[in-house]
């Protein structure tokens, strides 16, 4: 698959702060957007809207995060919406943690609105789908050194509110859920983006 595309990616009309970002430096050896530039992931193309981290991986987790609005392949410049609290539809792996042997340690078996979501460049995420950039894990599978930048929080899509919202009243809230427990899956979820990379209490060492 590819990064998320199509007409349903925007789930809020505001706020919007557009910022242009070069995909990489002049030498082509340092990327300013990730994990898009990683060879394992999809290449960014016009019409794709992944949630990505901005700035070098070496700065992780102190990276701004945002959603690609447009991409100009002629200049290699992406315009991201970096506004706090914009809501977008995104691909999210249901992985919640990795173990010390760099395998998957746990899964988010039930997804709740408000659950934090991180930009995750783990092999298990692209192995699942090369268009998936998010998971519930605050560390990548290289967990000894790699904290994941906070991307945002699971939110209701416009048509996932009970008795309210687009499509008329619904009989129940309708956040997508994994089909099975303790099994890796890629979910399509709405995420309210934030730019607070702040470390959670659980990972302050």
């Amino acid at each position, binding site marked *: 698959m590819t990064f998320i595309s199509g007409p349903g990616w925007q789930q809020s009309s505001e706020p919007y*702060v557009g*910022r*242009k*970002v*070069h995909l990489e*430096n*002049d030498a082509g050896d*340092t990327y*300013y957007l990730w994990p898009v530039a990683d060879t394992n992931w999809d290449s960014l193309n016009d019409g794709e809207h992944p949630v990505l981290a*901005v*700035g*070098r991986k070496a*700065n*992780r*987790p*102190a*990276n*701004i995060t945002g959603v690609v609005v447009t991409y*100009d392949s*002629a*200049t*290699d*410049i992406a315009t991201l919406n*970096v*506004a*706090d609290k914009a809501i977008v539809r995104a691909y999210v792996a249901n992985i919640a943690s990795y173990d010390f042997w760099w395998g998957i340690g746990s899964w988010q078996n039930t997804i709740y609105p408000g659950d934090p979501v991180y930009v995750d460049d783990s092999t298990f995420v692209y192995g699942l789908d090369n268009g998936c950039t998010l998971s519930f894990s605050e560390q990548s599978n290289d967990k000894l050194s790699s*904290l994941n930048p906070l991307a945002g929080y699971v939110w209701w899509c416009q048509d996932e509110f009970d008795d309210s919202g687009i499509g008329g009243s619904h009989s129940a809230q309708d956040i997508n859920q994994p089909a099975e427990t303790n099994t890796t899956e890629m979910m399509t979820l709405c995420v309210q983006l934030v*730019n*607070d*990379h*702040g*470390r959670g209490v659980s990972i*302050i*060492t």
Partner: protein
Amino acid sequence: MTFYSGSTWQQSSEPVITRKVHMEDDDETALVWPEGGTFDTLGAGEHPVLAIGRSDNRPMNITGTVISYDSATDIATFNIADKHIVRAYVANINAYTQGAASGWQNTIYPGDPVYIDDSDDLSTLNTGCTLSFAPRNEDPLNNPLAGYVHWCQDEYDDQGVGGPNTSQGINQPAATDTSEMLTLCVMIVNDHGWNENWT
């Protein structure tokens, strides 16, 4: 030198959230820092990036850019909006050991985090320099995150103000492992968030 001034300090037209701040409380507790002492004293026409609130609260301080200053009332008006971009003075120091600079950002990349730093090394370098790459100051106390290095309007390759450029143009230090003050564009944020270097 003094705090940053001139006509090119603004590098984005939006967002703007203005807030008036008294420079100090009635009991003379400083509410904006670093300013005064070994640093420059704020004057009209100067636009430094500063921390708001007592330094005792560090690193949980809002950060913003001074838009205007009224010396009659000692009130500064800040833009505290997340993601506005300004040109600012930034020291290339990224670490201190026993009160002295011990690490330097020898190559500057867009997206590198920048902090409000009240260390003497900065004011010695330039009394108008309030930012560095160091998550802790010389004491060592946590520094509030000010924002991230970003391209100025004329620093994009093949795009932006001034027509097409042949390369990206982020300013770089002239020498390695040497303290320098750089003029860089910074995308301001208000996330004081913990850095992995803090404990």
